[in-house]
């Protein structure tokens, strides 16, 4: 399967190459890429990209090094400071901040301004810090509620659009002896997803971003309202028990066995559900329902490519960024047999997949509030870590709320100076 995919990427690359060959054939030297796409499917995609780009430019040698995705989160610092490569992988939004501030990412605003990156206008915002753009996205995916369609049918439930309907549904699910949501909060970030959605729905996207940037207070009435809504779900027994001992993967069996009927997750959960034996007739997706009358904000984490400011071959690096974001390459690498996610270029086509088309439709037409990255990418790293710990504690001991919020407020006044 991977072979056929590589081949398809290659054919696309040739056509893309023809289109851009006029400006690109004078590239020479070596292009060094360090990628964190270490899982099997992404790795094949990245290797295909490197090989195609190498083949397109006879005078250029592409050197690709793939490092473990988790390890890269701390290795990137060393990689960028000592002998920096030309192109690297990272994440959008606030996660770029430490490297932008330290001057380790190359400012590529001129590429956006000069029309070198057509079709990326809608994602430009996620790449902008201090009014400049620091990289290009290559894939993103929606978050939302994945649910057991068969159990919903059995209980006569329909996809809710308001929080009242959500709670009414959940009550019926709980009455049938099941839990409404599975979650594994051992590694904390899953609780961040719940907070993102509850806060964006209760107070709106703009308030959520104010909280992320430290302008809003954790002890404000708005935040308390968010937690009050969350508490409604906790008190009715909506979440599985003992979730603090499970990773997100360990929480999957509850969904697969039908002990819990829904999972607030990113689209990367779908292959796991299919592998576990659920058919597409048993699973479906809906947007997190409306709570207050505010425009809907959505989480759609974006993965990115950047040029190191200390890169040796910036010309080739820029050409590579153009290549990766071109409509054809975007369609190919986000296809169902490749990354299986959403393409970032507006001229690309979305794979014919029930979940991707729903997600794409949701993000294009019903995310009028704005698109957030994710709790641990929008909030500064230290605030995210302390915050997610508090969120997990709240889910287990909701009575500790005051204590938790005071702690987070203390952290806020210290972290955002």
């Amino acid at each position, binding site marked *: 399967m991977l072979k056929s995919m590589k081949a398809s990427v290659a054919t696309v690359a040739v056509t893309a190459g023809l289109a851009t060959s006029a400006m690109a054939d004078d590239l020479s030297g070596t292009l060094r890429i360090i990628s964190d796409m270490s899982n099997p499917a992404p790795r094949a995609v990245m290797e295909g990209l490197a090989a195609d780009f190498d083949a397109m430019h006879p005078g250029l040698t592409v050197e690709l090094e793939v490092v473990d995705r988790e390890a890269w989160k701390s290795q990137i610092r060393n990689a960028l400071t000592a002998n920096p490569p030309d192109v690297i992988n990272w994440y959008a939004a606030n996660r770029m901040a430490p490297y932008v501030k330290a001057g380790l990412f190359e400012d590529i605003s001129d590429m956006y301004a000069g029309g070198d990156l057509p079709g990326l206008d809608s994602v430009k915002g996620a790449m902008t810090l201090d009014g400049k753009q620091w990289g290009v996205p290559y894939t993103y995916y929606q978050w939302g509620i994945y649910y057991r369609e068969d159990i919903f049918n059995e209980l006569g439930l329909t996809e809710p659009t308001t929080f009242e309907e959500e709670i009414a549904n959940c009550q019926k699910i709980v009455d049938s002896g099941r839990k409404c949501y599975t979650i594994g909060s051992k590694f904390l970030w899953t609780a961040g997803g719940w907070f993102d959605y509850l806060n964006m729905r209760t107070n709106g996207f703009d308030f959520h971003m104010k909280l992320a940037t430290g302008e809003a207070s954790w002890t404000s009435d708005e935040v308390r309202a968010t937690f009050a809504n969350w508490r409604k779900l906790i008190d009715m027994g909506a979440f599985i028990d*003992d979730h603090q001992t499970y990773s997100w993967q360990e929480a999957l069996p509850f969904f697969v066995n039908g002990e819990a009927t829904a999972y607030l997750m990113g689209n990367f959960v779908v292959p796991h559900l299919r592998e576990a034996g659920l058919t597409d007739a048993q699973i479906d997706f809906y947007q997190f329902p409306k709570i207050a009358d505010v425009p809907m904000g959505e989480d759609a984490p974006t993965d990115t490519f950047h040029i190191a400011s200390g890169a040796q071959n910036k010309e080739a690096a820029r050409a590579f960024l153009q290549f990766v974001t071109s409509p054809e390459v975007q369609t190919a690498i986000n296809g169902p047999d490749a990354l299986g996610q959403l393409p970032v270029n507006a001229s690309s086509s979305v794979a014919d997949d029930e979940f991707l088309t729903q997600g794409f439709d949701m993000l294009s037409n019903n995310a009028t509030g704005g698109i957030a990255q994710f709790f641990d990418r929008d909030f500064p790293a230290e605030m995210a870590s302390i915050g997610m710990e508090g969120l997990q504690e709240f889910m*287990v001991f909701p009575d500790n709320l005051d204590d938790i919020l005071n702690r987070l407020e203390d952290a806020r006044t210290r972290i955002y100076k």
Partner: protein
Amino acid sequence: MTTAHSDLSWVRRNRMTLTPLLFLLPGVLFFMVYVIIPIGQSFNISLYEWDGLGEATYVGLENYRELTGDRAFEISLWNNVKWLALYLLAIPAGLLIALFLNQTITGIRLYKSLFFFPFVLSQVVVGLVFSWFYLPNVGLFDIITGWFGIDVRGGILGNPNTATYGIIAAGLWPQTAYCMILYLTGLNAVDPEQIEAGRLDGAKGWRMLWHVILPQLKPATFIAFVVTIIGALRSFDLISIMTNGGPFGSTRVLSFYMFEKALSEYGFRMGYGSAIAVVLFLIMLVFIGYFLWSMYQDEKAARR
């Protein structure tokens, strides 16, 4: 006399001093580069606010002042104390098993190796096995406590009141085996004549153990104490595997907290991490000081 000496070169005259110094040099050099100098650097970095990338700004003792009001630090410190105190249980437990296994019956080697087995396992494996053992609802531990009507909310590792004890128990399993081996070798060296003499004087049971055997096991006890203290202070891997510091930070120890603050995905506060490292170092220094003093006393006694 003086003329005879002046014939010899300076090197030859001083070789009794020079030779040991030369032999010491490589060791001292590496010890400086990898131990002493980094300790000094930690002290130095702890006075700065630094993210590891940009400029470091001097903040004096600000990091330490922040530590005093940091609840996560306080919890970590207390957990370190719990680890140090409870981990020492490995010593009497190891002694007990060693005494039990110190007999000659057929197949005793097999039993000995079975008891020694957990020490051979990697800490990661021990952590994984125990986290499965502790799983709520399906774990063996939960099933057994269920028979007695005890239900730990969230499972052992999911409950902030029990999680640290659960991890310490997992750590005691291999540590007891380690102490057992130390005592088994120690028991081999026990002088049979002294036992014989004790027996003639009517010593049995507890009195024999306390007054005749244990004094002879003193070197083994000392080593067991040293390795157990060291083991308790480097409990990092078990915590990382079993709870990752959670639930909500209740199982962190200082070394884990330092890692989180300085080197993990959400960390990179090098100054603050170093301040934690310095506190951990000062705690270790108490034990290191005691070990060195005690070894020095032994050497002095041996030289006499």
